[in-house]
């Protein structure tokens, strides 16, 4: 594994961008370039690559903590953890292909979590600390390598999902967990209503659930933990045991399942887990025990107006993301003015000159 501290060069690049009033488009390997809005500035901007800033700085399995540089390829990091029978429990998607191997920094900046999320927690839940470069080109350290830390504001968690608009991630400390000793997936045939109610009911009973997904016909329930607990849980759930559990969940996590094989835009609807089936023209796949619904519309709206989709989902307490696919719509759910004002001021607080990824999240940021 490469061990290369590139923070000084990255800091210098930010200093230069500041002096020349340049925008920096932060990139790890480019594996998630599809995600987010197209950055606003194109004339006076350049790519800042964190890809060479690689390596594990500290890993002590007994402490349940790993600290690594942002450019560290995620698959390498996970391999190191697996050697010690540990894992990143939010099991993020990689979306890697060819040279574009997902990095830790990109994963945290996007705040992605896999099917385990509703039961184990999200990417931000596992972040313990970070070192960043802010818009003043200062290297700052927040949080740390301990499980509990309430000294100062939780800036490290603020960075998760901020798409690099508040700073360049240098190093990230994460809580890790033991790999489950056993895992098994049960498959049952049922209607969408039944699927939603079962996923929620089981999540409210003491079963070792670690994933729950409905593909339109079949309900998939994964159990993880002590072998005896998994066996008895599977008995309670019923249905048939899935032969290749691992590759199924990988296909859901990496959006490679048949459902996603499509050129149309892919919408992500984050909704309360117990929301009944959402009537929309097109097809849906339900993950995260009901809380994440992937949606592919039948056809594009003629006037490119997605107001009614935003409204339908907001009315049930959720929000919409245009996850993949280019159409003339904002990628992220519009914010009410009161929240947008806080966002603008936060951006100002971290990146007063607007250097980092302008427009990638919202046009105003």
């Amino acid at each position, binding site marked *: 594994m490469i061990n290369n501290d590139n923070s000084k060069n990255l800091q210098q690049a930010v200093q230069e961008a500041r002096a020349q009033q340049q925008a920096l488009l932060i990139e790890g390997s480019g594996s998630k370039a599809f995600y987010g809005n197209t950055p606003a500035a194109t004339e006076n901007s350049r790519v800042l690559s964190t890809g060479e800033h690689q390596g594990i700085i500290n890993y002590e399995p*007994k402490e349940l903590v790993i600290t690594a540089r942002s450019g560290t390829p995620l698959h390498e990091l996970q391999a190191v953890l697996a050697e010690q029978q540990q894992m990143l429990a939010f099991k993020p998607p990689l979306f890697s292909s060819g040279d574009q191997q997902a990095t830790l920094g990109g994963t945290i900046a996007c705040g992605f979590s896999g099917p385990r999320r509703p039961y184990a927690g999200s990417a931000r839940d596992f972040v313990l600390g970070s070192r960043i470069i802010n818009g003043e080109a200062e290297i*700052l*350290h927040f949080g740390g390598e301990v499980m509990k*830390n309430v000294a100062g504001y939780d800036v490290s968690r603020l960075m998760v999902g901020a798409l690099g608009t508040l700073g360049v991630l240098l190093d990230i400390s994460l809580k890790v967990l033991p790999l489950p000793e056993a895992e098994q997936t049960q498959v049952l045939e049922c209607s969408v209503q039944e699927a939603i109610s079962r996923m929620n009911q089981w999540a409210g009973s*003491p079963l070792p659930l670690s994933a729950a997904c409905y593909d339109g016909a079949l309900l998939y329930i994964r159990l993880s*933990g002590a072998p005896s607990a998994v066996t008895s849980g599977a008995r309670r759930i019923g249905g048939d045991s899935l032969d290749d559990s691992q590759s199924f969940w990988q296909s859901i996590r990496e959006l490679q399942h048949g459902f996603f094989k499509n050129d149309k835009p892919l919408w992500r609807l984050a909704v309360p887990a117990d929301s009944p089936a959402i009537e929309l023209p097109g097809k849906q796949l339900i993950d995260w025990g009901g809380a994440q619904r992937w949606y592919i519309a039948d056809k594009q709206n003629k006037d490119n107006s997605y107001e009614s989709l935003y409204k339908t989902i907001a009315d049930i*307490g*959720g929000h919409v993301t245009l996850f993949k696919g280019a159409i003339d719509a904002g990628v992220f759910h519009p914010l009410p003015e009161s929240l947008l004002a806080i966002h603008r001021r936060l951006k100002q607080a*971290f990146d007063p000159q607007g250097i980092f990824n302008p427009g990638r999240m919202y046009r105003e940021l």
Partner: protein
Amino acid sequence: MNKSELSNKLKHFLPAAAIISETEALRPYECDGLPAYRKMPLLAVLPQTVEQLQQVVKLCYQENIPVVARGAATGLSGGALPLENAVLLGLSRFNKILDINPLARTARVQPGVRNLAISEAAARHGLYYAPDPSSQIACTIGGNVAENSGGVHCLKYGLTVHNVLELKVVTPEGELVTFGSAALDSAGFDLLALMNGSEGMLGIVVEVLVKLLPKPERAQVLLAAFDDVEKAADSVGEIIAEGIIPAGLEMMDALAIQAAEDFVHAGYPRDAKAILLCEVDGTNEEVSEHSKRVYDVLTAYGASEVRTARDEAERLRFWQGRKSAFPAVGRLSPDYYCMDGTVPRKQLGTVLTRISQLSEHYQLPVANVFHAGDGNLHPLILYDANTPGELKRAEDFGAEILELSVEVGGTITGEHGVGHEKIHHMCVQFSEAELEQFRRLKVAFDPHGLLNPGKVIPQPKHCSEYRTIGSGSHTHSASCSH
């Protein structure tokens, strides 16, 4: 604007009983759970509706009067310590559980609802609210959010930040905003994460949507006695290495064991130098399997005795000893000072040895009670505020413990917050550039600096003074005992 003018204006939208301005009536509000620091507020107000609260905050905004929010005031860092020129905003009347949704496993509650009341209300659905600070019978969920409170089960089930889905917050301008959502995430920056642990500096929480978890089928506690504190500390890492995340993993030293035993008769071995309480939970089969493995690890790593709770009553008794450790130690001495550093687990032994040396140096006894699973120490320094110089010695001793925590790679506060108490030590943990980033973040939420000013983030001059004088030499003008 003077006190009576303000009081008159408040009467336009608050009943007279919700405005407290007489000195004697204000007395109960002069401190929180850290009574060594006391101050009288300008006024205390106890609104009952969100609209009233918004009007209070709007008025204060217009008149440039600071606001200090307060829940049950069980906080241990002086975070709710009033300011002489500020309105103390009591949230005790926001005490309703608005909704429990058993299918979605959520509870919507007002900020003044007690932590334990949520679990009690959810119990009939087989659900509970996981974070359980020792003060859970009294502390409120709003305060838990402000401090990002933990408890004895947070290694496995997380802190407040991991168990809150959505917050309704009143901004310093008096506007009502929502952070987070009933879904598992929300659009934009993670303002929800930022609010947790922000100690009333960024907004006033007026409604909380918390996550509920299914009650585990079974829980079992093992009690291990050790004749050496370091051995006990080392066995903690070995349990983790076994691939088991205990639901709770707590440690107490000899002084704490004896105090707890005298107080609640928990059945602890009195002659032990340290005990470890390890709870495993899950399905019936899982608990049997894990208890056996934990038993083997503890025995292999030198426990002189390992007991498994024979029944639920004994399990609760084992925990009662731990949960009442603070008041139990409180009986040993007129006053005690509770510290809250967190250190990497591997440093536990070293840090405990160093604390016992410091205890000799300062001539003040110390009892150690802590969340060993996540390295969060709670040394309780015993002192008598009526003996001249003892409070100062206790503070200096505490300051050294905090600096030691930072030195070994930890933090000055794991769950009690910085508040008023540890503001100087922020200068030890953070650089001036980092503190300046915190100040700018605060301004993004509170441009006029009206929410709980003077807490948590020190001003540059504080740090330069603190660093020049050197650690442990700062003085406070505190004079009371609890």
